């Protein structure tokens, strides 16, 4: 430390090593969480379709197909969203029908 002033300029700070993802830019989100939540909470095949497209995001990205991965990302998001919306709509319709029919209290409870 005593000869600090006489040393050559310090080396530049270490660079973070490049991963393949950084070379290509940020990968598109695969929305797997939303796909799984849509499958779990909305019980519709749309959730499964969303998981299929989530999988395609990862597989296409791994192959370097950036455009394909982005396309699959959008589809994964849309299928999860429409699965959720359709699930809510169907459940609201079911509740309205049962309330209107007055049979809500007599349902056997094997729901979700």
């Amino acid at each position: 430390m005593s000869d600090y002033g006489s040393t050559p300029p310090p080396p530049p700070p270490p660079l973070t090593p490049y991963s393949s993802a950084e070379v290509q830019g940020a990968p598109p989100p695969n929305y797997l969480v939303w796909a799984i939540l849509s499958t779990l909470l909305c019980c519709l095949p749309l959730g499964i379709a969303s998981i299929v497209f989530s999988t395609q995001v990862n597989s296409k990205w791994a192959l370097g197909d950036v455009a394909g991965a982005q396309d699959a990302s959008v589809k994964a998001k849309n299928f999860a969203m429409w699965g959720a919306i359709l699930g809510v709509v169907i459940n609201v319709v079911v509740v309205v029908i049962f309330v209107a029919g007055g049979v809500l209290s007599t349902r056997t409870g094997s729901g979700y």
Partner: protein
Amino acid sequence: MHVVSPSASTGRSTGRRAVLRPLGVAAVALIGVGYVANVDPNTPGHYPTCPFLAVTGWYCPGCGTLRAVHALGHGDLMTALARNPFAVVALGYVVVTWVLWLQRSARGRSLRWLAPPWVLYGVLAAILMFWVLRNVPGWTWLSPA
């Protein structure tokens, strides 16, 4: 020779405002869990029956999730696993993903890594197998009943 991540260069997703989205999602999720913990899904009439179950008579991969969340809300992991083991595992994954999202938001980073594709193919295959097997007689440990 310096690395600038795309989100850092926009300056939009850095700082304290960036963590508001994950925190907001967590608040909504906790309200939902609190509701399901207090309004018992084991009581008939509290919630509508799964539409897939109502139409086909078969359990879907999500059947039992409300009762599993209710049990988790009361700290009863074994009952939660009995109602829907996939839901319990999936909720663990959701929590881990949320923590990583919060970290990325706080540090102003964008997503940098995707899991290898075989992991997702495995998840998809596991969910489809779970869907079938929980409807097979004798596999009651997978069924919500």
